[in-house]
């Protein structure tokens, strides 16, 4: 009997001491039901700052437990724990209180429902007047921002005043997980950079109570990188293409004669302006539905500049209805300069370029009306076009205008081809500005574009050959080259 009592008290004492000993490190049930069922712990746990990111994240790697997919096959998943200082868990509560105070001091506040969480906060502050509330609010704001500043220090105090929290879960069979926080200080998953983090990984069985913790790793700090290595391929392209452009532009500046193939649509522009002058009818230039930040629109501005200059020289009338105010502002600038350059500043009128409206079909309705009433000799459509392309081009055809179009919007090219006299397809739009100006610098960049295309073809052929051979002969180095082009986002 005495022995029995002794054993029982010993067990109780032992379990207490285990519980005490584990309080700092474990939040799992203190007594493992049967140690024989416990899975083997993961080994070789390594925690590192996640690469190629802005910080606020840690990547963990480990060797799977011996009972994961082998041995007893009891591991169902891995749970990643991070040691979190109490200060960090206190911040959301402080923030809730602050939120309450903000609502309370703002307009249209009504008391919360009894028994709710807000109600318990409300009870604390119920008796305070407005001035006191304001005071509390300000001090609380300061407390919170101070707490956020103190986070690294609190982390450094490990293992004092803190607890383990689960931060990520990985399925069985995995050997890596990431603890990704945000950089937003006012969100609960904020993860401060340059703070000492400690991690451990639990191998968990189907019964969540049966688990084994790994060794604790740390301290490890997260920080942002200054270069994303996953984007190396892009940077190589940027460099090559930039250098090519600069090289050919310099080459052209030195007076090299560069051939460009004839393009019917471009040559038609000059004829069209002459035709308009003869007929005494205006030229309609439509910049499309793009905004000023789209490159197609920027290319269109350049073409507009050329056309406007020619128009100014011939003293023909130009009409440019704009879809977007910023586009309008830029186009006015372009046309104005063209008139000045042509030596006819007096002919310039601020209303050559005007704003219509920013709703697609309202714009089309107005431009269609314009076409039938002003009967332009020539319609030029350059830039971004959407569904309205055919509406514009068919109405222009009915009005008997010569029509020249250019867009990089693939879906609309067929309609322009069908309804217009000349169409610039895709990249031709971007080449057009160089063509019209015949400036060596711009032609130089065309040359760079062609070289890049040749490079693309070569790369595609090489890549094709490589990926084929890699499949056929199982070459891993070949696929690693192919992988180089798979850009990390």
């Amino acid at each position, binding site marked *: 009997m005495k022995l029995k009592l002794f054993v029982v008290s010993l067990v109780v004492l032992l379990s207490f001491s285990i519980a005490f000993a584990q309080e700092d490190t474990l939040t799992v049930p203190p007594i493992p039901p049967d140690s024989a069922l416990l899975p083997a712990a993961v080994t070789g746990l390594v925690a590192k700052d996640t690469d190629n990111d802005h910080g606020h994240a840690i990547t963990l790697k480990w060797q799977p437990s011996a009972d994961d997919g082998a041995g007893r096959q009891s591991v169902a998943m891995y749970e990643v724990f991070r040691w979190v200082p109490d200060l960090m868990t206190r911040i959301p509560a402080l923030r809730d209180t602050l939120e309450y105070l903000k609502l309370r001091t703002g307009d249209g506040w009504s008391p919360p429902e009894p028994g709710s969480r807000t109600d318990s906060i409300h009870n604390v502050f119920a008796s305070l007047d407005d001035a006191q509330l304001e005071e509390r609010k300000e001090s609380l704001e300061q407390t919170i921002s101070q707490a956020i500043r103190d986070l690294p220090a609190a982390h450094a105090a490990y293992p004092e005043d803190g607890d383990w929290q689960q931060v990520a879960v990985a399925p069985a069979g995995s050997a890596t997980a990431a603890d990704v926080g945000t950089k937003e200080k006012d969100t609960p998953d904020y993860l401060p950079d340059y703070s000492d983090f400690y991690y451990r990984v639990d191998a968990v069985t189907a019964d969540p109570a049966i688990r084994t913790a790994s060794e604790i790793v740390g301290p490890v700090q997260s920080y942002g990188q200054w270069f994303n290595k996953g984007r190396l391929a892009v940077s190589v392209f940027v460099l090559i293409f930039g250098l090519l452009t600069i090289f050919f532009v310099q080459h052209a500046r030195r007076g090299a004669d560069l051939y460009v193939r004839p393009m019917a649509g471009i040559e038609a522009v000059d004829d069209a302006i002459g035709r308009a002058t003869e007929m005494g009818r205006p030229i309609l230039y439509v910049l499309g539905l793009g905004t000023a930040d789209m490159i197609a629109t920027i290319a269109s501005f350049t*073409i507009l*500049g050329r056309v406007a200059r020619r128009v100014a020289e011939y003293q023909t009338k130009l009409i440019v209805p704009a879809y977007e*105010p910023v586009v309008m502002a830029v186009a006015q600038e372009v046309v104005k300069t063209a008139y000045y350059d042509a030596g006819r500043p007096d002919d310039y009128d601020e209303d050559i370029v005007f704003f219509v409206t920013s709703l697609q*079909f309202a714009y089309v309705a107005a431009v269609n009306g314009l076409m039938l009433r002003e009967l332009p000799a020539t319609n030029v459509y350059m830039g971004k076009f959407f569904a309205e392309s055919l509406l514009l081009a068919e109405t222009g055809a009915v009005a008997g205008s010569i029509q020249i179009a250019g867009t990089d919007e*693939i879906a609309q090219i067929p*309609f322009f081809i069908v309804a217009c006299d000349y169409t610039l397809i895709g990249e031709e739009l971007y080449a057009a500005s160089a063509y019209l100006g015949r400036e060596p610098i*711009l032609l130089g960049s065309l040359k760079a574009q062609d070289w890049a295309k040749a490079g*693309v073809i070569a790369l595609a052929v090489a890549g094709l050959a490589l990926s084929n051979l890699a499949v056929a002969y199982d070459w891993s180095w070949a696929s690693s080259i192919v992988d180089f082009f798979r850009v990390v986002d």
Partner: protein
Amino acid sequence: MKRQIPVVLVGLFGLFMIFQYFVPHESSEWIYEFLLDWTIIIGIFAMALGLWSLYRVSVEKIRTRKPAWGYNYLTLVGLFTMMLFGFTSQNGEAWGWFFPFMVAANLTLVMIIQASVTKGHRGLFLGTAGVCLAVCIVIIIFDDTWGFHFETAEGLQSTMFRAFFDNILIPIFATMFSLLAFFIASAAYRAFRARNVMATLLLLAALIVMLRFNPYFGPLSPYMSKASNWLMNVPNLAAQRAIIIGVGLGIVATALKVILGIERGYMGKG
């Protein structure tokens, strides 16, 4: 100087945007997000420019008696009315003096337009405008069935704004769009003629795809749809890719030229 600074600005911001792509660091992200927000906000300010241009060109058309000038009153009244609807809403169920207010406000606008387009009688028109404006102000002060706000805690509240949207904007917008059904037929009729190899290819491809879901070809139908799928998926994929690569290159080259200051057409110098 006046021309240089913008070019420098373009280069500076352009280069930054390129660099930030490779720099995952927080500070670069931070600036990047700011810049994106800024461009949106600046764009909104430009609306004032657009509205002013619309107003001036419309008034100019009325003044110079351009073809269909009379309709420009309609444009301006529509603009002004919709704008007032956009900034006002009912406080309760009753309309009160809201509609008389709208009439008076629009009369004010029309009188101001008249004053700016006529040579004589300017005083008369301005005087009338003043009277109408006074009526508006009186209504604003004494009528509290509606007020100057539009969005409240419950979301969009202006009944008339919604009514105009549903019954004027939507019908015209959708009908304009539906005109494409007619135009696509007339364009097909006019252009799809086997004039040369290119036109014939265009024609044949269009025919095959249009026949794809026609149930009247009996046993041939599945082949029609397979052929059209093949066309859409294989040659189409190839051509799209060629165009996309070309366009991508064109965009990249143009963007680079803009950033490096080689291409200045958008600044009126090219």
